[in-house]
């Protein structure tokens, strides 16, 4: 099981804050994104943005990063704090 979190405008666009999903072994963040779009076709326009950032276990990673079972993955827009 993978825990997936969404933040800020992405959370509002998807109307989802958190979900759990099963992934094949050796899936990457890109694979997870494809899986989510398969499960929720209306999410395509929001998850396709090339501006989105991803973290795995609270560390920023690239889209090619391989996800392990039990990981916490987050998708979010560029940060705007400070």
């Amino acid at each position: 099981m993978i825990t997936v979190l969404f933040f800020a405008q992405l959370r509002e666009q998807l109307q989802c804050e958190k979900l759990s999903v099963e992934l094949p072994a050796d899936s990457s963040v890109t694979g997870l994104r494809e899986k989510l779009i398969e499960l929720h076709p209306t999410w395509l326009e929001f998850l396709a943005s090339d501006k989105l950032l991803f973290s795995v276990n609270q560390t920023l990673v690239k889209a090619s990063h391989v996800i392990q079972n039990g990981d916490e993955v987050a998708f979010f827009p560029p940060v705007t704090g400070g």
Partner: protein
Amino acid sequence: MIVIQQNDFDVGEEYKALVADDTAAGAVVTFVGRVRDLNLGRDVLGLHLEHYPGMTEKSLQAIVDEAQSRWKILRWKIIHRIGDLHLGDNIVFVGVSSAHREDAFHAAEFLMDYLKTRAPFWKKELTKAGSVWVESQEKDLQAAKRWE
């Protein structure tokens, strides 16, 4: 110390804590970011600040670790407020003490530039025209790139 909180902070108290009983601290720089009335031409009434609990603290610690590898820092503190803020409210505090002013100035500026581009916080602006998520700015990315 990294603190994420809804409550306001007191710059005078933070200054005192940065220097208390430390006669090595020859230079202290503080930065405060505040909710201002005009952002990119929009009339701002207030802000809502969201963060990613856990990752935000972790990201800020990594930024501090990087600053400490570059400059001689004696004490430091980062406070970032979350939740609903009003016009003129404090948002963020960065304080750094050092023996020398170059270290204190550069470390504080670096912490802010990296916080702005690497720490998971998101601002939603409340304006008369409604509320809108703030877009990240190219100038902040450029400011952070100066330190690479």
